[in-house]
């Protein structure tokens, strides 16, 4: 089982603008943690800091600590590429590699890391696709181009691709927001199954979705353009939605804004 | 690392040319640009005839190409039917791909004889009789002349002026044109009101790019311009351009004396002018696109 992801004093910057301030949270292993909040509240930024994708944009950086077990991910000798081997990511819009087949997409991460043993790749691909709930649908279309599937299938293909490299944590940035309701349902089911093997952190703008699928929820807010985003409340999901502590959380959950 | 190589390349090009040209400028100074004598035997080098020929042929080219290119660019933006627009675009692209030597060959054997037989006498007979224009159209028996060179240049630069003008015109926002039409403007009026004012500086930039191409065109021009020394006001007389003289004299130039150096000086002048035109053109096109957005 994987370790806890421990965030301490995390701030994110674009140049000299601090856009995320002093986030402290403990992400528990083997659970689904949701990050919610109105648009622009910094949920995606926080997510991207967890696998050091935030700094890939020119001028962006993060300060503070993120520990994965004992490992300080932001230590000077930590390589972002290493970090991402353990903490994977699925994006808002499905992005399979257009020049590759379904099978090649799923094993892309493995091949790029130099693993070429055919039988091993097949095993890992099947396992990942089963976890992503897409094996039955696509097992006879492994050699078709990765781009010609429906939106929902593409997204689950991307989930399989991320799972094939066997990360311990999977970060999902609004994975269903670009999909139709049926595909959304399938993604939500997948997330529920995933938590048996990976720790999942999901960003979502849909509160009901968070309430349905997560064990813990973090609520973020950016109160004005001059001030950075902040983590307002972080608690077990059922507690947050029935008895929130912070009045701002309550206002958001009851639909008074956002 | 490799990319910096591109910068290094340009620097080396400029430095090589400058170094080679230096003796010429040291000897003649600014008289190089005003002198009318180009005499390798006596080592006297004045570039005025070539500068004149280059300017005249390019001016003819721009005068002919500009209206055609802008008209074509506007047309391509106006026509909605893909059946017309796509083939037309492809044809213009093909025009751009034809090598200069093929233009030269066709110009020399097909276009020039035709123009000499029909156009030159017609011009001499009509515009050549008018008081101010008569010196422009004095016919000569020579096969090559500046008008022919200017016309072939015009054909060659239409694609590039059209392409850049098209890009610029396409960035003019749709709603501006629709506002004009909603006011009851005719099609042409909406173009004049909404499109042209915004695209104007970009079109000027496109023209500069075309001008740069015309100034530097060597092969087709040298085959049609007559390669005659001397400065004549008649467009129907032979001329000589900077690239043409570089091409014609370079290989046989003697290694003693200043001939190579003088030719390199001409090359340097050519680079400098095309540099300035390219930079200006970029500025104008950018400005036009920024204004439109």
């Amino acid at each position, binding site marked *: 089982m994987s370790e806890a992801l421990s965030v301490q004093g995390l701030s994110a910057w674009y140049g000299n603008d601090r856009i995320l301030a002093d986030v402290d949270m403990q992400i528990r292993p083997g659970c689904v943690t949701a990050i919610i909040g109105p648009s622009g509240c910094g949920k995606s930024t926080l997510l991207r800091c967890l696998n050091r994708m935030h700094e890939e944009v020119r001028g962006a950086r993060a300060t503070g600590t993120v520990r994965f077990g004992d490992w300080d991910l932001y230590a000077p000798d930590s390589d972002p590429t290493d970090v991402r081997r353990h903490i994977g990511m699925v994006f808002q819009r499905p992005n399979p590699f257009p020049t590759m087949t379904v099978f090649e997409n799923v094993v892309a991460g493995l091949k790029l890391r130099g693993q070429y043993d055919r039988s091993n790749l097949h095993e890992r691909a099947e396992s990942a696709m089963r976890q992503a709930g897409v094996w039955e649908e696509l097992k006879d279309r492994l050699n078709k181009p990765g781009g010609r599937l429906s939106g929902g299938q593409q997204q689950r293909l991307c989930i399989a691709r991320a799972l094939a490299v066997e990360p311990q944590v999977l970060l999902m940035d609004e994975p269903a927001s670009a999909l139709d309701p049926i595909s959304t349902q399938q993604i939500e089911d997948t997330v529920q199954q995933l938590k048996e093997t990976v720790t999942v952190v999901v960003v979502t703008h849909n509160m009901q979705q968070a309430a349905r699928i997560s064990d813990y929820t973090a609520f973020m807010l950016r109160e004005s353009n001059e001030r950075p985003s902040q983590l307002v409340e972080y608690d077990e999901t059922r507690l947050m939605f029935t008895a929130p502590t912070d009045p701002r959380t309550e206002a958001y959950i009851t639909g008074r804004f956002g | 690392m490799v990319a910096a190589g*591109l910068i290094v390349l340009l620097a080396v090009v400029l430095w090589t040319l400058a170094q080679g040209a230096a003796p010429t400028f040291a000897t003649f100074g600014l008289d190089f640009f005003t002198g009318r004598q180009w005499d390798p035997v006596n080592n006297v080098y004045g570039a005025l005839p070539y500068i004149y020929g280059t300017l005249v042929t390019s001016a003819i080219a721009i005068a002919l190409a500009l209206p055609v290119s802008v008209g074509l660019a506007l047309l391509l933006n106006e026509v909605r039917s893909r059946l017309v627009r796509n083939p037309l675009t492809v044809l213009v692209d093909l025009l751009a791909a034809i090598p200069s030597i093929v233009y030269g060959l066709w110009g020399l054997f097909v276009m020039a004889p035709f123009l000499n037989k029909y156009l030159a006498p017609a011009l001499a007979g009509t515009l050549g009789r008018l008081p101010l224009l008569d010196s422009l159209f004095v016919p000569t028996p020579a096969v090559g002349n500046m008008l022919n060179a200017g016309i072939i240049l015009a054909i060659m630069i239409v694609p590039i002026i059209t392409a850049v003008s098209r890009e610029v015109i396409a960035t003019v926002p749709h709603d501006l044109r629709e506002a004009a039409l909603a006011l009851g403007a005719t099609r042409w009026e909406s173009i004049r009101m909404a499109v042209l004012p915004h695209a104007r500086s970009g079109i000027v930039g496109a023209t500069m790019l075309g001008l740069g191409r015309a100034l530097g065109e060597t092969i087709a021009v040298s085959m049609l311009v007559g390669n005659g020394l001397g400065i004549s006001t008649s467009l129907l007389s032979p001329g000589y351009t900077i690239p043409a003289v570089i091409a014609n004299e370079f290989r046989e130039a003697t290694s003693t004396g200043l001939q190579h150096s003088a030719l390199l000086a001409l090359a340097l002048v050519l680079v400098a002018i095309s540099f300035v035109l390219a930079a200006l053109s970029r500025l104008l096109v950018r400005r036009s696109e920024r204004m439109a957005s």
Partner: protein
Amino acid sequence: MTTGLRPPKRLHSIAARKAKSAAFMGLLWAAGVVAVVPLFLLVGYVLMKGLPALNASFFTQTAPPPSVPGGGMSQAFLGTGLIVGIATAISVPLGVLTAVYLSEYGRGRVAASVRFVAEILLSTPSIVAGAFVWGIVVVAMHSFSALAGSIALTVLMWPIITRATEESLRLVPNDLREAALALGVPRWKMILRIVIPTAGSGILTAVMLAVARGFGETAPILLTSLGNDFINTNALRPTDAVPLRIYTYAQSAFTQWQTLAWGGAITLLAAVLVLSILARVLSDRQQRRIG
């Protein structure tokens, strides 16, 4: 600065305005015709005069002495192959690497100046490239050579490849890059194994356009490779090239040489047009695949 509309200066009757509009639109159509007619005239004549020149000996024999029947341009075809081949081998890696830098790594002043320089080199007259290479290579080697010709062509082809390749790379959607990075792949590997293959035929198109240009250039070869009546495979010696041979023959007084010139022109035109059309087809297909 007004960004709005400027009303027309005079108001005539509606009929007059409509007529004026129709007239101007007619002028636009006329411009289109005028621009395109020379293309047909040119291609037509080249076909007409060039086809008779094409026979077996045209492609297999070397330059004939004046007024001797037969003969061909084989030395020029081989020479062009040699010169453009070497130039392509040099300029493709240089061009692609520069484009990768501009698209994937470069930001700020350095990248902007590299792009600027590329544009300047793109609009530099080709004869200047010839003069420059003459000044360095020919003078140093004390000899005209195919290699010098290749270097001169590289000066022209490098920026073409860079510009078109950079455009192709930029068209690759950014989320593909992010997806690869998120799988724990180092940046250089992501570029090599994901971005470049996705841009794939766009890069091929860039090379085809550059090669088409290389085939057709006369002026730089004139000053660097000199030409040769005989077949030459040594890159360090003067070598013939098709456009160069056409240039010499066209301005000669011998009809037989002029006929050969037309033959050369038709092969050159065919090669260049085929490459350009193929490049366009590939590029359209690529846009449909990615976009």
